[in-house]
């Protein structure tokens, strides 16, 4: 590190060399992995594959498997994207990362659990009344999460308005612990299972164009998706489109963007800054609420710590897309979900890493490091001068 002290100006310091080394290592690791993946798809017993996987060579990935991974990645990524929007919007308006946002998502998933069991007891969780019950569940969970986000702003963050940004950031970690433990206190620390979804949602699939039959006689399709994943993707896409319309086209959305850019001038236009900030939290909370229910549909269980990992991953998605940029948050979420689903088999497996699917979390955070190393502003982020952000 002495070099970092001695060398000044245009010359590279020790830290720069280390970062360059990290960039090259990570990119070559991924690049070689991808090339090796293509190679083992073509010839599973090529020298590279036999070196890492032994004499019998690597296992190949067939189209239905690949397509299944893409669908899984997309549906999870859509959820990350929905949550990431909340991080990004609050960051845009108040300039801090609200780490309690993951808990808003968790509370929505919990609300979904409560609603589903109640509906199940009433016999409404099946048959013709399932769809209205499901819609009601989504609405109630969204309202609850919106409410939680708004209360959070009022109680925890508004009193800190005008203090250095580190203070609300630390507070948000406190709020996160508070909400997690409040849920444990109310519902216990165990995992809660959703009432069983009807088969048409949970098990049935949409199949398009049969391309063959597998060795065990199961038909294979060019495109096949479970109904629940299709629903997750569709609901997420509709929500994102609605949010886009709201932010870009409505008066309130314009006010929101104006407040994000310059609060003083926004108030000079007659915009009520406090109310706009509340709206921001509310909209972010609603998006997290929808994501929470989608999580329930996909994984059918919820626990007090459910918010943590998706929350952190959504935060990663927001950073990958360029924090403060809503399109970036969505794109970041989807690419993160895709990477998480595909990278274990397409990058890690060709390197002979066993059980690569266990490493999906590592993939996500490696991607975060990679983005921070190569384009710290995120894929769509613009470099903000300190003046802009002050």
């Amino acid at each position, binding site marked *: 590190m002495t070099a970092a002290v001695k060398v000044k100006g245009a010359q590279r310091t020790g830290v720069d060399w280390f970062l360059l080394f990290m960039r090259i290592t990570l990119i070559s690791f991924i690049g070689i992995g991808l090339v090796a993946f293509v190679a083992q798809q073509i010839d599973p017993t090529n020298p590279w594959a036999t070196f890492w996987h032994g004499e019998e060579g690597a296992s190949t990935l067939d189209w239905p498997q690949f397509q299944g991974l893409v669908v899984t990645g997309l549906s999870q990524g859509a959820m990350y994207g929905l949550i990431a929007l909340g991080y990004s919007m609050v960051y845009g308006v108040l300039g801090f990362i609200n780490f309690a946002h993951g808990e808003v998502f968790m509370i929505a998933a919990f609300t979904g659990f409560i609603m589903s069991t109640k509906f199940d007891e009433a016999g409404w969780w099946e048959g013709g009344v399932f769809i209205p019950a499901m819609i009601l569940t989504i609405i109630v969970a969204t309202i609850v999460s919106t409410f939680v986000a708004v209360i959070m702003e009022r109680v925890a963050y508004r009193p800190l308005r005008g203090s250095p940004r580190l203070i609300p950031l630390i507070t948000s970690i406190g709020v996160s612990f508070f909400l997690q433990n409040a849920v444990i206190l109310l519902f216990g620390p165990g995992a809660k299972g959703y009432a069983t979804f009807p088969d048409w949602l949970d098990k049935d699939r949409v199949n398009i164009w049969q391309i063959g039959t597998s060795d065990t006689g199961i038909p294979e399709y060019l495109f096949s998706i479970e109904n629940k994943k299709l629903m997750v993707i569709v609901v997420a896409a509709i929500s994102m489109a609605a949010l886009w319309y709201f932010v870009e086209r409505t*008066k309130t959305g*314009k*006010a929101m*963007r*104006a407040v994000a*850019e*310059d609060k*003083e*001038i*926004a*108030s*000079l*236009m*007659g*915009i*009520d800054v406090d109310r706009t900030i509340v709206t921001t939290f509310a909209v972010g909370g609603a998006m997290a609420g929808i994501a929470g229910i989608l999580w329930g549909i996909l994984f059918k269980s919820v626990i007090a710590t459910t918010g943590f990992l998706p929350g952190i991953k959504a935060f990663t998605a927001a950073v990958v897309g360029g924090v403060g940029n809503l399109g970036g948050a969505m794109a970041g979420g989807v690419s993160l979900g895709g990477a998480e689903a595909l990278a274990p088999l397409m990058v890690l497996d060709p390197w002979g890493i066993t059980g690569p699917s266990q490493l999906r979390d590592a993939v996500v955070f490696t991607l975060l490091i990679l983005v921070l190393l190569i384009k710290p502003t995120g894929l769509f982020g613009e470099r903000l001068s300190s003046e802009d952000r002050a």
Partner: protein
Amino acid sequence: MNDDDKKSPEFASGETDVATTETGEAPAKDKGNPILEFRNINTHYGAVHILKDVNLAIYPGEMVCLLGGNASGKSTTLKTLLGMVTPTTGEVVLDGEVVNDKPTSYRVERGITMVPENRRLFKRLSVAENLQLGAYLRNDKAGIQEDLERIYSMFPRVYERLSQKAGTLSGGEQQMVAMGRALMAQPRVLLMDEPSMGLAPALVQTNFELIEQIHQEGIAIFMVEQNANMALSLADRGWVLQTGRVVLDDTADALLANPDLRKSYLGEA
């Protein structure tokens, strides 16, 4: 300075000011009641006393300017007028009503708007969106459209750049958008904070011509300006602030002729 002759000097308002030195010229027209007034305003930031017994009055359709050096309280005056700073004592009066506790939006709705220092456009929003936000508190769609068209004809350059992000415009164009944005609020009093600050010298003249043009439409202008010569050559009346106190309150012509002022603000030894 070049168009002094078209000014008709007017009386300083009859308000009791610290250093009123009225000249005996007859008022050009009856001013009616002031739109906006400061009555013995004192403002503090913590323990620091910023404005000291300041009295101001802005009448419909006039052009007035506030001069003063750094830290004389010019910005605080504007913030207090707009309700971004609450005075410790004294009254801010809008149309005869004390508005000390009313938020900025209340005053904007009643026709008080500011073109801020350095323009402060929403740089990441389009020019059109900037203009729309100027009319944020208005709901009369037809009127807004009419005003937009008026602004387009006033600033054809702005019309050409409607869909562009405001941050990509040149300084002069940004100034036009900033004025357009303020006009969209249908102001009766337009507060201008250092309008020539940060503009290329060639644009300063154009800029003052634009201000004059807006003034011709019957909008009262309250200008805070470092460029005292230029400001006084346009304005009817002016005040000079020194460490939070109004030390001079006179017609623009009298101020221009004031030897003390010439010495301290107009850079003449």
